[in-house]
């Protein structure tokens, strides 16, 4: 199932401290079984993508890894620690090492852009006011948000809101970055900008990034490691280079659903 390139990635970039391993996760809500025994090793320092149709369990999977939902069975390992066995204090500390970009941005609408980015620093860092100002300024520059600090989330575009959300997520220099549908609601050009930004930041800060998406452009653009989910199961994993050549029927059906990708397949086979 795994190509040569994927194995190389695992060996070359192995970094246990920043590794996230998911082992046999099950989750159900009432009678609805959403996750049915998912096992995935996410590659440290790389952009890991979870793809699949709506209702395949991607968002529940992501929120379970984050600890927003407790799994019914199975375990989640951050480095050599098991999430479910951590003390409350350790879990709170771990959360300060996580950055999350929510689908809708989840920006605090009563705060300005700068205050949103500054918020984690105010809550958890022991920086001086000057150091906080410098960090906010650096992060805003990094996501190309210069001059927008005094604006409120309602006053900026969807693409800018996503960049603010990314800036807030990386302000504490996290080890792990999670993104839930970062491109939803964005035009194709802005979506590519956001994808590239996530990819650049992942490599620059050596974060383990997990992106939840159903955008095939994102898969091909930034998918160092791609996990395909269907009906609560992981049915395939590989790299962005392998996804177009996958012989898995479910992946083929998903990837080549659009007319554009059908033409790409024809071109590839020629």
């Amino acid at each position: 199932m795994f190509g040569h390139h994927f194995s190389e990635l695992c060996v070359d970039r192995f970094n246990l401290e920043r590794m996230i391993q998911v082992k046999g996760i099950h989750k159900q809500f009432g009678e609805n079984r959403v996750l049915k025994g998912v096992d995935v090793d996410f590659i440290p320092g790389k952009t890991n993508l979870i793809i699949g149709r709506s209702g395949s369990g991607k968002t529940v999977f992501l929120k379970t890894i984050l600890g927003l939902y407790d799994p019914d069975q199975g375990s989640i390992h951050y480095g050599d620690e098991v999430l479910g066995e951590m003390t409350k204090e350790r879990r709170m500390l771990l959360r300060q090492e996580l950055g999350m970009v929510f689908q809708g941005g989840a920006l605090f609408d009563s705060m300005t852009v700068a205050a949103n980015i500054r918020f984690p620093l105010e809550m958890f860092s022991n920086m001086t006011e000057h150091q906080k100002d410098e960090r906010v300024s650096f992060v805003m520059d990094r996501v190309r948000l210069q001059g927008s600090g005094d604006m409120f989330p309602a006053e900026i575009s969807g693409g800018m809101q996503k960049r603010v959300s990314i800036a807030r997520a990386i302000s504490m220099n996290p080890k792990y970055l999670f993104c839930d549908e970062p491109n939803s609601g964005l035009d194709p050009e802005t979506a590519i900008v956001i994808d590239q930004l996530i990819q650049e930041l992942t490599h620059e800060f050596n974060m383990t990034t997990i992106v939840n998406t159903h955008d095939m452009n994102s898969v091909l653009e930034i998918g160092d490691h791609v996990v395909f989910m269907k009906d609560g199961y992981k049915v395939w994993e590989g790299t962005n280079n392998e996804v177009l050549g996958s012989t898995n029927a479910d992946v083929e059906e998903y990837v080549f659903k659009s007319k554009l990708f059908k033409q790409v397949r024809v071109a590839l086979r020629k």
Partner: protein
Amino acid sequence: MITNFFEGIGAYAMLMSKVFRRPDRWIIFYRALLQEIRLLGLDSIGIVAVLSVFMGAVVTIQTALNLSDPLIPAYYIAIATRESITLEFSPTVVSLILAGKVGSNIASSLGTMRVSEQIDALEVMGVNSANFLILPKIVAQLLFNPILIILSIALGLWGGYMAGGALGLISFTDTLIGYRMEFMPFYTFYALIKTVAYAFIIGSISAYCGYTVKGGAVEVGVASTNAVVRSCLAIILANYVLTDLILNA
């Protein structure tokens, strides 16, 4: 239905156990507290003032009409007005109005934060979101509602004084005599005890309704309505229990 009720009580108790923890950063808590005092307290002064003046006036008029007997001294009207306003109208009626104004505000703001994933964002960061968002709202009300009720009592008595005198139901002098006669400071203390209990009820029940919203805009609206209805019912029940415990003991 009974199971749901007890599940709700359990969930409410668990939420309160998360709320009443030491804040992560005191300076941020104080800033949030000042903001809540402005939003939930200072912004309520106008409605409390208008309501109290007219409430005092109506109580005086109705009492005067019911006590219009030459054998009853006129200042009795003022005594009855004072006791009605201090014991019941200001603490309970004003709190019911605040349950509508403040309760819906709390539930809708927290509900909107829940459905737009802002609360999830706080949790992911490692912030105790219940403590961070709800504690300042409850403390702000515990601190400021007694001030509002004292203001309400004062304005209610002033409203009665003006209405009684202006309509010729009781002279200004008799009103002042009545207001001062056999004044029991404990009744004001009793009003403040009720106010503090009601403030906690409004803050905590409304926060529970908003914080536990699941769904979208429609559910936020339902939560806001539930917050007002449940707070009002709890206030009425608490009014009975506290009155029996404090005055009938």
